[in-house]
């Protein structure tokens, strides 16, 4: 029996894939929005691994 594109199983998988895509898209938007918000406010931005962290120096406020 040939597999039809509109098989129930495909429909369910398609729905799940669309859900994952939407969730990932929403997460990207939230993270981007957070980045913009934190940059706008001038909050400290520094990496955590294998890099110089200004907040750990004795001159940091």
């Amino acid at each position, binding site marked *: *029996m040939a597999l039809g594109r509109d098989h*129930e199983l495909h429909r369910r998988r398609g*729905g*799940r894939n669309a859900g994952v895509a939407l969730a990932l898209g929403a997460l990207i938007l*939230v993270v981007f*929005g957070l980045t*913009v*918000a*934190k940059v706008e*406010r001038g909050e400290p931005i520094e990496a955590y691994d294998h890099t110089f962290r200004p907040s750990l120096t004795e001159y940091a406020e």
Partner: protein
Amino acid sequence: MSDIRAEEQATPEAGLSDFVALLKPRVMSLVVFTALVGVVVAPSGVHPMVAFAALVFIALGAGASGALNMWWDSDIDTVMKRTQRRPVPQGRVAPGEALGFGLALSGLSVVMLGLAANWAAAALLAFTIFFYIVIYSMWLKRTTPQNIVIGGAAGAFPPVVGWVAVTGGLALEPVLMFALIFMWTPPHFWALALFMRDAQGRDDYGKAGVPMLTVTHGRRVTRAHILAYTLALVPVALGAGLTGIGGPLYMAVAVVVNALFVLGAVRIWRRDEETAIADRFAAEKRFFRLSLLYLFVHFGAFLAEAMLAPFGLGGW
């Protein structure tokens, strides 16, 4: 017959709606609402985007708890009328899938809340998930009739997490919001336990072997407990109105709703089983519906006080 058909019959594939159901959307909506109130009434001016992100990740944490709870409780969910249609008992989602989904969402929500707001809020969210799954679902729910009382703390944390996400610390106000939900939970669930029975009149929780108060101490004692907890809830609700998050509007609403709630509890306490069965638990169902309104109205009033404050109308 194709292989796909054979596979479909063995383990039906879950659709998107099944994974959404794992998140317990109705519980999640209550969590989002109470956490939103915690965020809005907190005295701090975080960026709206940070507040929004905090709410998203608190909601995700609540969803993760729901999925983990459905994984752990799949055996009793199969027995109980109220939970039989959930995706795991129906066989649409395998218990392992629910576990993986819940764990992944737990990790994501906690880490993202820490990065978006602060690590105190993230730690509190992690503790909330731990409390709901390990303390309530795995331990208390199946061992003590006090399950609902102590387990209610898990549902009481969201406004505190919201407050801490904004301020980075604790205060009297979030503790009172916690106490309000904590004291509200037992009468709410015991009213539900009174009328959740199958066609033969067997208690839903009794069938599943969950030591709900109705099962261990009987329905008469449960009715008395509903009244006792409702009376203990009133000073908490009115006391919260005297703090920085309350105000005249909140107090007016709280006095009316608490009077109605006590009246409903007295009515439940005075009824016997014959009367309740005769009118199909009308008073118990009415009290349960009122309990939903109770929480919504109190937190709505906190929200209204905070929204009116910039116009000089909210607060004392």
